[in-house]
């Protein structure tokens, strides 16, 4: 028996958003009497962290602390339209809508502050900690709380904003396929190291070294979650998963988490990932969608590493021990040792 080691590379790009019918999302923002801001959406958090990242984007644009932002989602009676959470569109589309809404609300907030401070609104800045002051003169300022109170009870102003992001519909030209389906592209490269058991065909992924280009990481820890979880799913797709283990034969479809194979906590690979950032010109603070892409590059990188290890090119997913072993047997038949 031998454990054959190999290394494989793959690089990919991934579109942010997918637009064949117009791809909008909206956001509404308003301040409470006490200077909290409510971002109202009908957007869905699947676990990727939308509620966190959107609050960060809103806080950044409003110039207030993250803690002062509340995300109110998702109720179609109150939340404005969102196309949905898919196509790596959430952070990009909703983030952009939130920035637009937050700018409008910020303008009102600064105007109220200017009135209270008897200065020109154009001279005001926010410190991100809950205060608004004259640029260069931190003492000449007012708290966001007081601005909100004044807006409500003195001036009769609503500190609010409306935002929408729309990628207009692109209809492909039937003859050539000319189209504009996406907003930007994120990128990834994986270098996989594997070990192949030459008697059983079992593949173990030893290590994935990943480079990810994400536009800008709104929250690096959450980007890291997507990267690690996505790369795990990549390993899972490469070696384990299917609802039809003998496709196109329909038999033996798994019905539970025992039969539906995915790597467990004892089957993990070492992972080393680096993020690089090339902000997207149309992304919120440059962010691109990365949630989907993270699963993609590990799959071919593993397939290529398996070939490197043992000379078996498996061209169908998942790469089961059986497929590898049949490949090894075929090599042995051609070239007996």
């Amino acid at each position, binding site marked *: 028996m031998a454990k054959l080691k190999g290394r494989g590379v793959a690089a990919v*790009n991934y579109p942010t958003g997918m637009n064949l019918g117009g791809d909008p999302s909206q956001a509404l923002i308003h301040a409470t009497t006490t200077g909290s801001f409510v971002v109202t959406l009908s957007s869905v*958090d699947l676990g990727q962290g939308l509620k966190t990242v959107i609050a960060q984007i809103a806080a950044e644009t409003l110039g207030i602390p993250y803690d002062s932002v509340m995300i109110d989602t998702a109720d179609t009676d109150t939340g404005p339209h969102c196309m949905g959470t898919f196509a790596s569109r959430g952070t990009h589309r909703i983030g952009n809508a939130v920035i637009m809404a937050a700018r409008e609300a910020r303008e009102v907030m600064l105007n109220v502050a200017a009135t209270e401070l008897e200065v020109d609104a154009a001279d005001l800045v926010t410190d991100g900690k809950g205060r608004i002051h004259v640029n260069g003169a931190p003492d000449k300022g007012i708290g966001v709380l007081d601005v909100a109170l004044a807006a409500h009870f003195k001036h009769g102003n609503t500190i609010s904003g409306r935002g929408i992001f729309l990628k207009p519909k692109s209809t492909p030209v039937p003859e050539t396929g000319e189209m504009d389906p996406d907003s930007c592209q994120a990128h990834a490269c994986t270098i996989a190291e594997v070990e192949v058991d030459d008697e059983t065909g079992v593949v173990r992924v030893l290590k994935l070294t990943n480079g990810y280009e994400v536009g800008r990481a709104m929250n690096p820890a959450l980007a890291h979650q997507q990267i690690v979880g996505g790369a795990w799913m990549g390993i899972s*797709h490469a070696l384990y*998963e299917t609802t039809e283990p003998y496709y196109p034969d*329909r038999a033996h479809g798994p019905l539970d988490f025992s*039969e539906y194979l995915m790597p467990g906590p004892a089957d993990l690979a070492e992972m080393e990932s680096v993020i690089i950032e090339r902000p997207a010109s149309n992304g919120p603070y440059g962010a691109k969608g990365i949630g989907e892409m993270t699963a993609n590059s590990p799959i*071919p990188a593993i397939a290529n590493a398996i070939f490197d290890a043992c000379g078996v090119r498996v061209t169908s997913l998942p790469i089961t021990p059986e497929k590898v072993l049949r490949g090894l047997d075929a090599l042995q038949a051609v070239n007996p040792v």
Partner: protein
Amino acid sequence: METIDTSFFTEERAGSFNTVGTSTERADARGHVTGRTQFYEDVSFPNTLHLKMVRSTKHHALIKKLDVAPAMKVPGVVRVLTWKDVPNNWYTILKLIGVGPDDEPVLAEDRVRFIGEQICAVLAETPQAAAEGAKRVKVVYEELPPVFDVEEAMTSKPFTNHGSNYYIYEGHNCRRIRFGDVETAFKQADHILECRYNSAPIEHAPTETTGCVVKPEGNGRYTIYSNTQALYFTLDNTALILGVQFNKLRMIGGTVGGGFGGKVDVIVEPIATLGAMLTNRPVKYAYSRAEEMQVSSPRAAERFYIKDGIMKDGRIFARKITLYVDAGAYCRHSTYGTTKAAAHMPGPYTIPNVHVDAYCVYTNRTPSSAMRGFGVTIADFALESQMDQIARLLKMDPIEFRLKNAYRDGDMKAHRKEVEGAALVEVLQAAAKQSGQKLSSEFLAMSSYGWGSANGKA
């Protein structure tokens, strides 16, 4: 934990932020760890009816007889819904963005086209009574020959009700990309490499299964607590299927126990809402784990044929791709995914001659739909396996080979969109650096800013 290598695109990424770029604690983390986060199934209402679906046990068959009377005899069974109860039984999810035709019945009428297809819905006081009722519904089938292979399906007798086992894209039997002239280019190429790649369907397998609870509000409105990934998609389709004004429905959701694309379909809400309307009681329809695994849409199985014309110097000169996407019995989001796949071709490389035929094909299996990396994940497996084969054919380092072909700003993609914001060169460089692989100065100097331009590194 997370490393950002700021030596790439240093100028472009410069900026000062307060909260953006900060690893803020997750807003939902404390709710998750204390068990207080409210998922859709955590709401409950008195008098809720439980819905159990009777499903096809055949791949393809005519329904000769459907007898629901035995189910009604089970104590606790309140009603059985069949297609006759559904106001607009035929639908397609992407209707809202102008995609047709309506190719899928909410509940099967005279035939079934895959194992697991919804036939009728048993509503009962308890999940146990609903399951018992569902088991007792009698369905008499006359089996028809099924088709399981995508290429076979292209030419076999159509089983769909729209005349072909593939989707028609504006008069073409596939989504096409035509860029340059691949046939002439193949003649000029030094090497030709052809290979077939394929995949089997993949399940999203979220830990929370798909489901909803629908509550009649007594004022003609219905609140749908759902774990859909797209509230308005679900609301609008549900209203269209049920023939009610959009504002009669209210969706509440937004907190989902994993989606990965599996909760973009609109399957449970219309029928549960119909049940709530016809009984004036709350109705719950949650997929069992087995239903989630086998009945909910998987990621499509795909089959690729890639033919490349390659020059001795390592440049790919032409790429021809034929792709079959196994949509299963109905279209759902597959037409869109197939177009997305076509637009993704030929991968992040600048290739002057590209020809893509992407077929969206119907077979008698569980309809496939969106999943993380829709249209792209399996394509990347095929494309990047192919890239590895070419690098080996040319005896080139796989990273250097990719750098030679990587797209740059200003290049024209095969779907005639100019590249901007490219960074493939840099992720290759970054991964090489991270793994300790030393690239030669020629490759280190490359940049996404353009061919022969100085790179984006500080």
